[in-house]
C-alpha cells in the first residue's frame, strides 16, 4: 500500500474529550466507530482511496476486536449491495467509493436499496472528484440523490463537523429508512486538522454478536407489488421524516447577519470558501461572523421547504452558491419562492460561473458582483495583478501531466506497442481506466477512447469488425477484476471478436495507491487469496494467450506483432506481468539496506548515457518518458542542444537498454552494476580486469 496509516490509526481508539489530529478521512472513520457501525467496505478511488487504507490498517487493531466486518468489495456495485444487510437487520453499515463514476457502477444496487428502504443506518461516503485536478468525467452525485430519494449530506468541512455528520447520517438514515450519501470533496478528504473525540461504540449486531434468525418481509423485496408501495412510502413517509430529522437535529446552520435584505444559501462544502470571500470583501470577520445572513446546507437533499422559506422571508435578494450543473438546489428554491409568491430575487448561475469548481476567485467575483459597491473595490485591491504572471512568462509553462513512475512495468508495454505500430501501421487502441491511461499522454499519445473502468475491450466491439487492422484494447488487473472480466472478455469471446487485448497485471490497484485486488495474493484484511487472470481467461475459452515479461521489450514486441498478424481468429490476449515498481521498491529497498548492513553481496543496477555519444535527437525520450531519463546541458563546447541523461532516481529496470535495441536507437546507453561487499574473489577478479584494461588503455 502506498500509505500506511498504522500510526494515525492508533488515534481511532481515543475516547471522550481526547483530541485527534489528522486528515478528514480519519475523522470520518472515527465518526463511524463512534456510531456503532457493524460493517464497512468500499472500492478505492481518489479522494477516498485512503479511507479504505485507513480501514485496512484499522482492521486488526480495532475493527476485528469490535466485531466490525471489513469487506474488500470487488466493485462499487458489490459495495452498494453490501448495504443490503441494513434492509432486514438493524445493522449500521458504511461503504465508500469515488463519485460520479463509482456511483454509476453502484446505481443498480443503490436504486434497489433506496426502494426497499433500510432499518439499520446505511451510509455511503462518496469521494466527489470534481473540479481542477479531478481525474474523471464531471457530473453531479446530486442527480442520484434526487432520482433514488437518497439523503445527500454535503458537510461544512471541519474535522469536527465531518465526524458529526457521519453520526447524523446514520441517524437520518434510520429515521427516514433512506440510505444517506455523505459527499467529501478532494480537499476536505485530505484536510488536516483536529477533532474532539467521543467513545467508540460497539455494534449490537456484529461478527461477535451474531444474528440468529433470518428476517422475511415481502414488503422489503424490490419486486411488484412491493415496489409500488415503496415508491409511495418514499414521498409520503421517508422524505418527510428526513426533513423532520434535519430540523429537529439542527443539521443545517443559519449564520445570522444584520444585512436583512440580503442572504446567501450555500452548500456546506463550499462554506469556508464563501466565508473567506466575504472576509476579503469586508462582509465577514476571520471567525466567520457575517454581515450577510447565510443558510448553510449540510444536507442538500432533501431540502426543508419551511426552513428555506423562513430564510427567504423579508429578503430582497438571495444568492445560491451551488457547485456544478444542473442547478438542482437553485431551481428548487426558485420553485418554492414562486409557489409562495415571494418577491425575493434568487440569483445563482446568473451571477456565478455556471460549471466548474467554485474556487475562491470565482466565488469572490460572484460575491463582489452580488454585493456591489465597497465589496467590488475590496476585490479589485487584491486582483490588480491578475494576468501579469502569464504575460511576463510570455508563453504558458510546459505542462506536467502525470506519467508512469520510474521503472514502471507498464511503460515498456507502450514502448513496444509504439514500435509495433511504427512497423505494422497505426491501429485503434481502446484505453481503459488505471495508471495505463497515462499512455494517452506524452510521450506515447496512445489511446483512442476511454469509456469507463474495465470497459475498454467492450468499447472496441463495434470498431473491431469495422477496422482494417486488428484493434488493440488495454486493461489493467484492477479493471479486469472490477468489470473487464464480464463486460470485456466474456463479451468479446461470446461475440467472437477478432482483436488483441493487452492486460497489464501488476498485482495491485496501483493508480489509487496500491490497494490489494484479487491478483495481489491477499485481500484488504490480509487473508491469503490469489485469483489467476490467466486461468480465468482460459476457462472462458480463450485459446490464444501469452504471458510476457514486459521488461523484455524485444519479446513483448514480437508477441504483439504475432498477435496482430497471426491467422488465428478470436480474442488474442497478452498478459504483461510484472510487479508495480513503486510497491516493489517499497519491498526491496529495506531488504537491500539490510543485506548491505549484513555485509552480503549486493549489485545495484542503474543506467547511464555517454554524453559524447548522445547526439541529442531525443528519440529515446519519445519511446520511454521515464522521469529518470532527463536532460542535461551539453558538455561539448561545439554543440548546444541538451543531451539525454539518466539521473540518480533510476532504479535500473533495464528499459533504456531494451528500447535502444528494440528500436535500433543510438549506442549511448549502458547499464552499470556497482557490486557492494563483493568478497575477496570478486574483488580480486575485478582488480585483474581493471589492470589488464588499464594496460590496454595506456597502450
Amino acid at each position, binding site marked *: 500500500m502506498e500509505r500506511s496509516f498504522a500510526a494515525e490509526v492508533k488515534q481511532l481508539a481515543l475516547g471522550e474529550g481526547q483530541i485527534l489530529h489528522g486528515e478528514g478521512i480519519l475523522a470520518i472513520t472515527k465518526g463511524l466507530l463512534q456510531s456503532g457501525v457493524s460493517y464497512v467496505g468500499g472500492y478505492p478511488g481518489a*479522494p477516498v482511496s485512503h479511507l479504505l487504507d485507513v480501514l485496512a490498517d484499522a482492521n486488526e487493531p480495532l475493527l476485528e476486536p469490535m466485531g466490525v466486518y471489513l469487506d474488500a468489495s470487488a466493485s462499487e456495485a458489490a459495495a452498494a449491495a453490501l448495504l443490503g444487510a441494513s434492509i432486514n437487520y438493524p445493522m449500521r453499515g458504511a461503504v465508500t467509493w469515488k463519485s460520479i463514476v463509482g456511483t454509476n457502477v453502484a446505481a443498480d444496487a443503490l436504486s434497489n436499496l433506496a426502494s426497499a428502504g433500510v432499518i439499520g443506518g446505511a451510509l455511503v461516503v462518496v469521494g466527489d472528484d470534481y473540479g481542477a485536478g479531478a481525474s474523471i468525467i464531471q457530473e453531479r452525485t446530486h442527480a442520484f440523490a434526487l432520482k433514488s430519494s437518497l439523503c445527500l449530506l454535503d458537510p461544512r468541512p471541519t474535522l469536527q463537523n465531518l465526524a458529526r455528520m457521519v453520526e447524523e447520517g446514520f441517524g437520518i438514515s434510520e429515521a427516514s429508512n433512506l440510505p444517506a450519501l455523505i459527499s467529501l470533496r478532494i*480537499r476536505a478528504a485530505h484536510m488536516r486538522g483536529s477533532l474532539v473525540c467521543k467513545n467508540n461504540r460497539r455494534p449490537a449486531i456484529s461478527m461477535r454478536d451474531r444474528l440468529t434468525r433470518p428476517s422475511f418481509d415481502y414488503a422489503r423485496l424490490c419486486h411488484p407489488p412491493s415496489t409500488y408501495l415503496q415508491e409511495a412510502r418514499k414521498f409520503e413517509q421517508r422524505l418527510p421524516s428526513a426533513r423532520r430529522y434535519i430540523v429537529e437535529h439542527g443539521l443545517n446552520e443559519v449564520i445570522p447577519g444584520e444585512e436583512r435584505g440580503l442572504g446567501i444559501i450555500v452548500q456546506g462544502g463550499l462554506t469556508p470558501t464563501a466565508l473567506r470571500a466575504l472576509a476579503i470583501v469586508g462582509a465577514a470577520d476571520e471567525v466567520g461572523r457575517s454581515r450577510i445572513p447565510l443558510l448553510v446546507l449540510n444536507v442538500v437533499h432533501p431540502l426543508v421547504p419551511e426552513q428555506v422559506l423562513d430564510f427567504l422571508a423579508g429578503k430582497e435578494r438571495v444568492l445560491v452558491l451551488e457547485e456544478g450543473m444542473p442547478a438542482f438546489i437553485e431551481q428548487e428554491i426558485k420553485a418554492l419562492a414562486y409557489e409562495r409568491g415571494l418577491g425575493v430575487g434568487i440569483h445563482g448561475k446568473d451571477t456565478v460561473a455556471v460549471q466548474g469548481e467554485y474556487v475562491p476567485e470565482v466565488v469572490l467575483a460572484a460575491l463582489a458582483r452580488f454585493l456591489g459597491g465597497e465589496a467590488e473595490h475590496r476585490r479589485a485591491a487584491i486582483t490588480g495583478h491578475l494576468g501579469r504572471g502569464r504575460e511576463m512568462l510570455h508563453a504558458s*509553462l510546459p505542462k506536467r501531466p502525470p506519467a508512469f513512475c520510474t521503472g514502471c512495468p507498464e511503460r515498456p508495454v507502450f514502448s513496444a506497442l509504439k514500435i509495433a505500430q511504427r512497423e505494422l501501421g497505426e491501429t485503434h487502441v481502446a484505453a481503459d481506466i488505471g495508471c495505463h491511461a497515462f499512455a494517452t499522454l506524452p510521450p506515447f499519445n496512445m489511446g483512442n477512447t476511454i469509456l469507463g473502468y474495465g470497459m475498454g475491450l467492450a468499447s472496441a466491439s463495434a470498431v473491431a469488425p469495422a477496422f482494417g487492422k486488428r484493434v488493440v484494447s488495454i486493461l489493467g488487473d484492477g479493471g479486469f477484476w472490477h468489470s473487464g472480466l464480464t463486460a470485456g472478455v466474456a463479451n468479446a469471446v461470446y461475440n467472437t471478436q477478432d482483436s488483441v487485448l493487452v492486460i497489464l497485471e501488476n498485482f495491485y490497484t496501483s493508480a489509487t495507491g496500491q490497494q490489494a485486488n484479487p491478483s495481489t495474493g491477499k485481500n484488504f484484511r490480509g487473508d491469503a487469496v490469489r485469483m489467476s487472470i490467466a486461468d480465468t481467461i482460459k476457462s472462458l475459452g480463450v485459446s490464444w494467450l501469452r504471458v510476457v515479461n514486459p521488461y523484455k521489450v524485444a519479446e513483448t514486441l514480437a508477441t504483439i506483432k504475432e498477435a496482430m498478424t497471426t491467422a488465428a481468429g478470436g480474442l488474442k490476449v497478452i498478459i504483461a506481468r510484472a510487479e508495480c515498481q513503486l510497491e516493489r521498491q517499497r519491498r526491496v529497498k529495506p531488504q537491500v539496506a539490510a543485506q548491505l548492513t549484513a555485509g552480503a553481496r549486493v549489485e545495484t543496477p542503474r543506467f547511464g548515457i555517454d554524453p559524447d555519444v548522445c547526439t541529442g535527437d531525443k528519440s529515446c525520450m519519445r519511446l520511454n518518458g521515464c522521469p529518470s531519463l532527463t536532460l542535461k546541458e551539453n558538455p561539448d563546447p561545439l554543440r548546444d542542444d541538451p543531451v539525454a541523461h539518466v539521473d540518480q532516481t533510476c532504479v535500473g529496470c533495464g528499459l533504456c537498454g531494451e528500447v535502444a535495441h528494440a528500436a535500433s536507437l543510438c549506442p549511448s546507453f549502458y547499464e552499470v552494476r556497482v557490486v557492494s561487499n563483493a568478497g575477496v574473489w570478486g574483488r580480486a577478479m575485478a582488480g585483474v580486469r581493471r589492470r589488464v584494461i588499464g594496460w590496454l588503455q595506456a597502450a
Partner: protein
Amino acid sequence: MPRDPRRPLSILIAALGGQGGGVLTEWIVGAADHAGHAVQSTSIPGVAQRTGATTYYIEIAPEPRMAGALDPVFSLYATPGDVDVIIASEWLEAGRTLEMDYASPDRTLLIASTHRLYAIGEKTVPGDGVFPATLVQEAVQKLTRRAITFDALAAARRAQSEVNALLLGALSAAGVLPLPEAAFETAIREGGVAVERNLAGFKAGRELVALGAEAVEPPARPARSWQEIKPERAAALGARGRAFLGLAARAEAEFPQHLHETLGEALARLIDYQDARYAEVLLARVRKIHAVDPDGRLTRNFARRLAVWMSYEDAIRVADLKTRRGRFERIRQENAAKEGAPVVVTDYLKPDLDEMYGLLPASIGRPIARWAERRWPHGRPTLTQAVKTTTVLGFLRVWLLGRLRFLRPRSLRSQRESALMDSWEQAVLAAAALDRDLAWEVAEMASVVKGYGEVRRRLSRALDRFLAETLAPAVEQDRAAGAGWERSARIVRERRQALLTEEQGSNS
C-alpha cells in the same frame, strides 16, 4: 493588498510528486501545533502524485490559541493575491504559481529552489525545448514582495539532506511566520524519519538565508578564457597534444581572435578523432568561407557545424569513446563506487550492416553497399549486442574496433560524408555571395545531420535533396523577384525545423 492582521497566514506549497511536499507540509503544521496556533492544511495529490505537479495549502492563525476564543475559519483554497508565502521546490513550479496569479507584489514572500526537473514536453521536442529560466526570474522579481531563491538541490547535496528540509530552514529564517525555530525542530523530530539528515538540512537552509540568499540567484557559470582551456585540451590529447598546439598556433596567426576558441576546439576535436592532417582539412574549408565573410559570424558557425560533422560517430568513434579510461572513471564517480568495488558496465550496441561496410575502403565497400541496399531496401540487418566492457574479452572486442582509425580516410563512409560536406560548403559559399543571413541559415542546415544508422542516413539524404532541389530554385525565384533573400532564408529555416520535427514524427 497588505494582509489583514487578524486573518490566518496562508502558505502555498508547489512541488512535484515524490519531492516531499507532503512531509514539508506536515512539518509546518507540526510547528504551528507546537507553538499553540490553530492550523489547517490540505493537499491535492490524486493522480498528480505520479510525477505531476502537486500543491499543498496551509493556513495558520496569527496568534496562539486562547481559552474560549473561536478558531478562525480556515479556507481549503489559496486565493490568488491573498497568499503570504509561496514555497516552490522547483523553478518551473515557482513560475507556475506566478502564472496562476497566486503571488502579489505587495504581499507575497516566495521561497523557491532554482534547480530544474524537466517536463516531458521540454524533453521530447527536437533541439533545445527547455523553458528559459530567466523568464521565471524576471517574473519573480516583478511579482513578489520578497524572494528567497537558491539551488536547494545542490544545497541539500552539500548538507547531505533533502530539498524540503532546506526550504523549511529558509522559511523559518525568513521570519514571516510567528513560529520559533525550536517549534520547527520539534516538528522534524516528531516526524521521526531521517531526523538527523533533516535537521542538518533545516540548519543549512537557515544559514543560507542568514548569508543573504535573498536576491535571485542567477544560474551563472564562471566563464573561462580559451587561453586557460587550451592547455587542458592539449594535455587530454597526450602525445598528439604538441601537434594540436602547433596547428592551433597557426590558426591563431591566420584568423581573427574571436574565432580562436571555436577553431581551437574544432582542431582539438578532430585531432582526437583522427589526426592533424584531418584537422587541416577543416582549416582548408573554413579558409574558403572566411574569405567571403569579413566579420566572421558565418565562419564561426560554419566551423562549429563542420567540426561536429567531421567527427561523425562511426563504429570506430563509438568504440573509441566507450573504451577510454576517463569514461570508466566518470562512471565510477557518478555511481559513487567505492575504491576497489567491482563495477560491471554493459553497453547496448546495435550497429547495422551499413556501419560495418562503411568502414571498408570505398573500392571494396561500394559494391557491397550496392548489393546490400538492393537486397534490403528499407534498412539493413543489425547486429544486436550487449557487451560487458568491464570484462577483458568484452573490452577487447570494442577496443580493437576503436583502433581501426587508419581505415577511416579511405573508407566508403568518409567518402560519402565528405561528398555531402562539399555540396553543403558550395551552397554556403554561393549563399554568402548573395546574402549573409541566408548563408548563415544554410550553414546552420548542417545541424540536421545527426543520429545513427537509418535515422542519420535519412537526414543526410534529406539535406542532399534540399540543397539540390529546394534551395537552388528558391534562390532563383528571389533573384527574379529582386526583393532580397529573406524568403529563401525563411525557407531554409523552416525546412530545418521541419526535418527535425519530421524525424520526431517518424518515431512518434
